[in-house]
């Protein structure tokens, strides 16, 4: 089946929200509880274990802050891509989306250096409670960044040909959500001590 063959079910919009955006909201809703469950577990352990603060002080606040900056900037690119798509300027939206994906790549690269340093210093995932949550939370978030960047490039290649422009906004919504998760991960993992 070609990518353009869509059932009539896909084109209806009883709620007034297009199907693509509607499904994105539901994906985000289901992601909230995944991250929320993990964050809640981390938070209650962290509050019950004051000794974790010593481990937390080893994290690199500057790397975390730089990564926050990178994600905020990539979110800006994503929303500008949405604006371009609304103006039916597919090529511009595609360029901005690729810039957003580049932000994701920079984020992951910084993360990679950070983790390499941590591991060199002897802090691996099994080094203690804080480190287990640190790697799991950031790892789960990193996977979302990676998946988002890949999808973003696919959407961009369609958008460049002015196809499926409604997807630009949807991948943007997802990207902003991933950004918001990081906005909370940053103080939880890097600042609070």
């Amino acid at each position, binding site marked *: 089946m070609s990518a353009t063959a869509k059932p009539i079910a896909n084109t209806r919009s009883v709620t007034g929200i297009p199907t693509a955006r509607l499904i994105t909201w539901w994906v985000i809703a289901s992601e909230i509880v995944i991250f929320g469950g993990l964050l809640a577990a981390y938070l209650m352990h962290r509050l019950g274990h004051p000794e974790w603060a010593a481990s937390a002080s080893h994290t690199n606040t500057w790397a975390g802050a730089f990564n926050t900056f990178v994600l905020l900037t990539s979110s800006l690119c*994503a929303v500008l891509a949405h604006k371009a798509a609304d103006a039916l300027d597919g090529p511009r939206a595609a360029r901005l989306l690729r810039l957003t994906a580049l932000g994701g790549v920079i984020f992951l690269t910084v993360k990679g250096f950070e983790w390499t340093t941590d591991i060199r210093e002897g802090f691996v995932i099994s080094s203690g409670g804080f480190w287990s949550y640190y790697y799991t939370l950031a790892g789960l978030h990193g996977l979302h960044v990676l998946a988002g960047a890949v999808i973003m490039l696919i959407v961009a290649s369609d958008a460049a040909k002015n196809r499926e422009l409604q997807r630009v906004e949807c991948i943007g919504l997802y990207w902003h959500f991933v950004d918001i998760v990081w906005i909370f991960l940053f103080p939880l993992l890097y600042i609070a001590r």
Partner: protein
Amino acid sequence: MTTESHVHHPNYVKIWAILVALLIVSVLGSLSSIRGVILVAAFGVAIVKAYLVAKNFMHVTVEKRWVPYLLVVMIAFVVILFAGVAPDVMRHDGLHWSNDAAKQTVETGMKAAPKQ
């Protein structure tokens, strides 16, 4: 496909500048030695930042009403989870019970930790 937008596009660069300024505030706040300042700088600012992203980049405020409600309900479920689990996991003793293993790890961990 999309021919007309359902949102009015604000000046995104300005919002981005505010977000970056807030980021700087939270990093500077974290250098403080007062616990209250750190917490407000970290989490108060995070909430404001998240709100700005949700409002201006995700346009939740101009989306159909039930969408933000749905997201809030999901967050509420997480809060319920926390409220139900925290009494057992966060606390290490209570009415007729005590979690000795956890107390032990806190004690040895605090001894091993360098003085803050």
